[in-house]
């Protein structure tokens, strides 16, 4: 790795004027966790620089330090060659740095204009400040093709528009350096393309852009240079045109990555799950699922692809009994309750549905509970875990020990609280609990989000094994690679609908990408 950095990367930024950003020896620890370790980086003026790495590699932490959101424990920051102290966001803004966070920092019930002006008002009185800002905002919006209604409330506009407000906020503050943290996570491919056009335009104006992402495609498409982070350390810096996705992937994880999962062809049996015209309306009266129909058969994995927020979460929640819906869902030929008191996770489990939820920290586990308590979580009413009135805690601990051994959970200590395990080991606990129930149907959401590469392979193998045991599996993932590698059939969701179904070996990422953007060709099996 180091030789790469010396040959191509370092050479690319060593000459010419002072770099827009230079980091020297940045370190940051959160309690016992070392998030950034001795990081150095140079970003040349007027370029788009990508920072790529796995979840938890420390990318966001590093950029938050640059924006003054966190304080580094050690190290030095140089902006345009000048050593700059950035103790808070105020200082970052003064140094010409703007940041668009992954989770937008907007006041929901304020207007676009108020959000843009907040913190950068001209004077103590509001009216003149807002009038001035309105003028400048219109000017900026025209210049960069970012049309927004200054008087619209944030809670009433879509995420793509909200992101533009964030960019305009930075430009309004005269940012020369713009940092974007995972900006496309909530965007459709088309919206992402628009964003990339804007970013290129900004670069051509002489602005410096840092793009943080874990998606190789985006790096290849839009960046000029790229550096790779791994486990809190900065690896190589490369010129994008001189590298390829395989090399970057290898640098990200530190070894050759098996992007395909080894599995035999599926031998589907009878229909286990049958969904017809499923609809969900959320609290704000927005229709999240707009009439979904599909089937999953025994011994197959149906993968649901799509950009986050297009109804996949709601689909899992309906099937898991967490939210009500209308329509018809049959499991092994009998209908599931979709409304009322019987519509709950407990009844779903009794019917033979196991559920690995998308967010293990908020849903799948109680982080303060010990591992053995988490093994009972969701199954606390199971007679096997009770002796009379009381719960059989000793039996549960023994059961947990066995599960931890079989699923290679480290450390194999049932008394340890869930929060003290790594992401991968937390996920293994959830998986052990759900898979060992021997369910007819397994719902899996984002099985490998925030999970280290070693655990990913293990988790994928277990899911395939369950399939080979003749169970039906519904997989939801925003990672296209995972969908392509694991699924026997793929359905693509967009805006609460299924846009089409494909077989993994008869489709391409490009075709799926079109479907994910809502472009349907009518070939779908909906």
């Amino acid at each position, binding site marked *: 790795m180091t030789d790469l950095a010396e040959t191509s990367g370092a050479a690319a930024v060593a000459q010419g004027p002072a770099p827009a950003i230079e980091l020297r020896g940045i370190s940051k620890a959160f309690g016992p966790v070392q998030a950034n370790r001795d990081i150095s980086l140079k970003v040349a003026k007027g370029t788009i620089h990508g920072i790529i790495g796995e979840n938890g590699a420390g990318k966001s932490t590093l950029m938050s330090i640059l*924006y003054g959101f*966190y304080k580094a424990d050690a190290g030095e920051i140089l902006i345009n060659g000048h050593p700059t102290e950035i103790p808070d*966001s105020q200082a970052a803004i003064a140094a010409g740095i703007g940041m668009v966070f992954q989770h937008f*920092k907007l006041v929901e019930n304020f207007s676009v204009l*108020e959000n843009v*002006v*907040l913190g950068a008002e001209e004077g103590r009185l509001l009216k003149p400040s807002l009038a001035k800002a309105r003028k400048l905002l219109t000017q900026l919006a025209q210049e960069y093709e970012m049309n927004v209604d200054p008087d619209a409330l944030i809670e009433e506009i879509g995420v793509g528009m909200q992101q533009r407000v964030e960019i305009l906020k930075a430009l309004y503050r005269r940012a020369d350096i713009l940092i974007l943290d995972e900006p496309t996570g909530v965007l459709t491919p088309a919206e992402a393309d628009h964003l990339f056009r804007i970013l290129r335009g900004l670069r051509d104006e002489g602005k410096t852009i840092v793009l943080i992402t874990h998606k190789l495609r985006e790096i290849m498409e839009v960046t000029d240079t790229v550096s790779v982070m791994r486990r809190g350390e900065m690896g190589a810096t490369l010129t994008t045109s001189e590298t390829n996705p395989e090399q970057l992937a290898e640098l990200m994880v530190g070894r050759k990555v098996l992007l395909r999962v080894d599995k035999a062809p599926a031998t589907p049996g009878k229909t286990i799950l049958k969904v017809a015209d499923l609809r969900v309306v959320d609290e704000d009266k927005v229709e999240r699922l707009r009439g979904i129909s599909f089937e999953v058969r025994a011994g197959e994995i149906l993968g649901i692809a799509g950009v986050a927020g297009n109804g996949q979460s709601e689909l899992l929640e309906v099937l898991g009994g967490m939210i009500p819906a209308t329509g018809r869902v049959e499991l092994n030929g009998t209908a599931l309750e979709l409304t009322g008191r019987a519509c709950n996770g407990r009844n779903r489990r009794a019917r033979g549905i196991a559920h690995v939820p998308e967010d293990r920290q908020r849903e799948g586990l109680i982080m303060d509970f010990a591992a053995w308590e988490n093994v009972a979580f969701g199954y606390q009413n199971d007679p096997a875990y009770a002796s009379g009135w009381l719960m059989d805690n000793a039996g549960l601990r023994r059961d947990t020990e066995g599960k931890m051994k079989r699923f290679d959970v480290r450390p194999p200590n049932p008394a340890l609280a869930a929060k003290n395990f790594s992401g991968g080991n937390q996920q293994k606990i959830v998986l052990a609990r759900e898979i060992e129930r021997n369910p007819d149907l397994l719902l899996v959401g984002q099985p490998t989000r925030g999970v280290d590469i070693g655990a990913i392979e293990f988790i994928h193998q277990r899911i395939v094994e369950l399939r080979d045991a003749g169970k039906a599996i519904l997989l939801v993932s925003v990672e296209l690679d995972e969908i392509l590698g694991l699924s026997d059939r793929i359905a693509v969701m967009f805006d609460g609908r299924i846009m089409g179904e494909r077989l993994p070996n008869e489709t391409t990422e490009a075709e799926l990408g079109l479907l994910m953007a809502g472009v349907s060709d009518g070939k779908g099996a909906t």
Partner: protein
Amino acid sequence: MGFDTVIQVLDSTLRLSTPLLLACLAGLFSERSGIFDIGLEAKMLVAAFFSAAVAYTTGSVWIGLLAGIAASLVFAGIHGLASITFRGNQLISGVALNFLASGMTVLIAQSWFKQGGRTPSLIGGARFEPIDLPFAGSVAGVPIVGPIYSDLLSGHSVLVYVALLAVPATWWLLFRTRFGLRLRAVGENPAAVDTAGVSVVGLRYAAVGIAGVLCGIAGAYLATGLQAGFVKEMTAGRGYIALAALIFAKWRPWHALGACWLFGLLQALALRTDVVEAIFPFRMPVQLLDSMPYILTVVILAGFVGKAIPPRAGGQPYVKER
């Protein structure tokens, strides 16, 4: 029931609603910035005691007022320390301060004045005297308008007018100034304020500080305006009624004025059983009248009459996400 009686009841309403209004606006600033404050009672109580004690000792009600505000600010500072700096539970901090104030005032009063936990009665310059508005005497004879001006509006202590002026001042500060924009933002989404380069901690301390000053005035009015000296537990739950009024007003300044007048009227009526008997055809238990602010607040909270949505970041300490 005659016109004079109405004027009397409304006059009493205006006076009784003054401490409620000041405390309610205090709560408004604090909660709009995202800091829940169930310690309004505590701040009013310490302010009441120190204003009375210092006014008695120095003979000057103005020095007393300053002392009351200072004492209230100390308590506001502790609340800020607990809920902003150390990111503790804001509700628990409020509960703790209420106890602290309740015990501390009696303890100090006893060791200072040795009169069973009260201050001596205030006389002369140690009390806020009623002030007559211009021409109050000359228009008194005019029918309807005369009594309204000279008996109802005129003849209150200066703090009553301060409280009334605080309403438009609060509205202006909140909705017409940069500070107000930031304050409202920090109660809705502190991360937005932080990343916009404005100090969340500074804004919240400012809001808690303003709440301290307003509660200080409220307490001083209780002990040196409404009454002539401090007695044990003299706030008598007014901090909680102010909190109820704040919810009733849905955290808006002009509505706060209306809510405080309503609750002040209920308190005024509870003191005039003759009027209550004349209004209601049945026997209205005075206890029902006393608990009406609380019952009304529960009804409002239940969302049967419009929903009361507090500032979104209210009650949660601001921690930069990991």
